């Protein structure tokens, strides 16, 4: 039994399948053997950054001229799927590096910034983080308090704090979004080397989710930056939101990877776990669970693939990305929980993946636009009436 119940493989191009297979084998060989322990220990496996870069997954959909693989969006989505089949924390690392740091440098940066940062970030020599969310401004980032003021020498002085920043403590560069005036349209992006005086990053302790991921709080106290630290083409809140649309697209695929991992584990368990003298997979209640799980996986895969084709055609809308992220993460969360339940008592152990995925997906449900905010995005698209403005 495979999760490809609708022969979706046949809709993928040869190189898309080849990319998927390489990343899947990488995850099987390097992520799955260690991830349970990393999760329990609360440690991001930094030793995988070099090998992931060598494989070519960092910023894989950006052009070859900047040292990237130049893949299409479907292949990029398949990479996210396979990484999250391993763990949402590993996928989050790649999402942030590629979609939230390399992408804004590519889209809003100067040629000099692109040439300096992108090849080194593709090679994993520079790790990046993305600072938009603040302690008091999550779903409403336009209210941010972080400011960048020009000093007398046309340089910038950064003050403020960011929270829930993936890769924050290990990054060498942060893309920080700050207000250069009072209004929302004054928001600009800045490239901040993390060794700049006044920049501090603090690990956020006590997470019960995404434990194999670096999540940090960033504080900027009179951080002085040169004039060319600004991303020249960034302007207004729409710039970081454009980055988030890139990342959310990857999440729509990634969540399906986590769901497939849970389904595969549940199927294997149901066939070997014997209760009342026969495998539990022979009982109707478990079969109903598995049938529901597979149905949602097939639907989610088709949704992600079609969205990818729209994106490659240049016609995908942020609202379509919202629908896919909202649906796929929500059903993946349900699938992980049902898999956990099918596994019975064993389902709470780190030896199995279901509960780890279930806990991770609670974060994925909330980050990159909460499920509820995406609901309102869709509500606005349907009715033309904006619920949060």
């Amino acid at each position, binding site marked *: 039994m495979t999760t490809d119940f609708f022969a979706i*493989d046949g809709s993928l191009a040869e190189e898309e399948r080849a990319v998927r297979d390489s990343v899947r084998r990488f995850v099987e060989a390097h992520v799955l053997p260690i991830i349970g322990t990393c999760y329990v220990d609360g440690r991001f496996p930094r030793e995988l950054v070099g090998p992931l870069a060598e494989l070519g997954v960092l910023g894989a959909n950006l052009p070859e001229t900047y040292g990237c693989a130049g893949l299409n969006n479907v292949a990029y989505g398949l990479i996210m799927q396979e990484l999250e089949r391993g763990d949402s924390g590993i996928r989050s690392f790649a999402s942030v590096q590629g979609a939230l740091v390399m992408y804004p440098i590519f889209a809003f940066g100067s040629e000099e910034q692109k040439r300096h940062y992108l090849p080194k970030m593709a090679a994993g020599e520079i790790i990046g983080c993305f600072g938009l969310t603040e302690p008091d401004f999550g779903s409403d980032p336009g209210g941010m308090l972080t400011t960048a003021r020009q000093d007398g020498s046309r340089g910038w002085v950064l003050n403020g704090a960011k929270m829930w920043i993936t890769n924050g403590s290990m990054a060498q560069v942060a893309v920080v979004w700050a207000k250069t005036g009072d209004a929302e349209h004054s928001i600009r992006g800045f490239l901040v080397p993390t060794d700049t005086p006044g920049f501090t990053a603090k690990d956020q302790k006590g997470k019960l989710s995404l434990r194999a991921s670096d999540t940090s709080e960033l504080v900027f106290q009179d951080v002085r930056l040169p004039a060319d630290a600004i991303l020249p083409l960034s302007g207004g809140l729409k710039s970081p939101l454009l980055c988030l649309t890139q990342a959310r697209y990857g999440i729509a695929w990634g969540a399906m990877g986590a769901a497939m991992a849970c389904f595969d584990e549940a199927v294997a368990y149901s066939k070997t776990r014997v209760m009342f003298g026969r495998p539990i997979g022979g009982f109707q209640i478990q079969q109903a669970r598995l049938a529901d799980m597979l149905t949602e996986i097939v639907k989610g895969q088709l949704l992600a693939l079609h969205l990818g084709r729209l994106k490659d055609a240049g016609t995908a809308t942020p609202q379509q990305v919202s629908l896919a992220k909202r649906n796929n993460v929500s059903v993946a969360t349900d699938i992980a929980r049902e898999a956990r339940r099918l596994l019975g008592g064993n389902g709470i152990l780190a030896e199995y993946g279901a509960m780890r995925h279930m806990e991770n997906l609670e974060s994925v449900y909330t980050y990159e636009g909460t499920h509820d905010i995406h609901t309102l995005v869709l509500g606005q698209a349907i009715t033309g009436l904006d619920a949060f403005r």
Partner: protein
Amino acid sequence: MKIAVCIKRVPVMDRRFTIAPGGTTIDEVGLAYDVNDFDLWAVEAALRLKEQVGTGEVVVLSLGPDVVQEQIRKALSMGADRGIHLQAASVGADDLPVARALADALRDGGYDGIFLGRLAVDRANGVTGPVIAELLGLPCVTAVSKLEIANGRGRAQRELEGAQEIVEFPLPAVITVDQGLNTERLPTLKGIMGAKKKPLEVRPVTLDAPRVTVRRLALPPERIGGRIIGEGVGAVPELVRLLHDEAKVL
């Protein structure tokens, strides 16, 4: 160092196989295909040799319908330099015509080594390599699990049943690769994109008529569960009787 590697497209083995109507072929619906594992190790061995020498060329050949180009491109994505597709609409169960077509393509290639897997995991005949060597009049070393090449000579370790054999041979030679020689590298994403730009030559071939044909395919019998005949010393006489009379192993 110029090395040719012959690779075969085979079904991925983790699926449940069924026999197609007609009873002589497997049902291909729902199967996935990949390069034969042993051939991947042959590709890896060739790439490492080229990297060790610092110069040379690795040429990958595969015989069959157009779909085998996917497997050639996988070898190219691992780092092979160019591919040759020996185009034939179908390939039968007789390995001699296959080996002949490969030998004809290899004969004037100026190769220092011709690498293949020890066998293909689909049919497991394991004869294509030795037959190519015979047809080309080259030394043949099969089931190689360690390999050193220097100064136009090779030294290889072969895996035998319960023993190992060390052999030396001059180049050019045909070498078939066994499990344990190496672990193949994963194609990198840049390698996958780059493979599309590498040369892949298509040469139509006409295979000799097969002299071996498949008459019937059968799945192995379903395994039936074990039987517990008792516990402790008291059960031994009955166990011995069943092993003698029923299983006929004593």
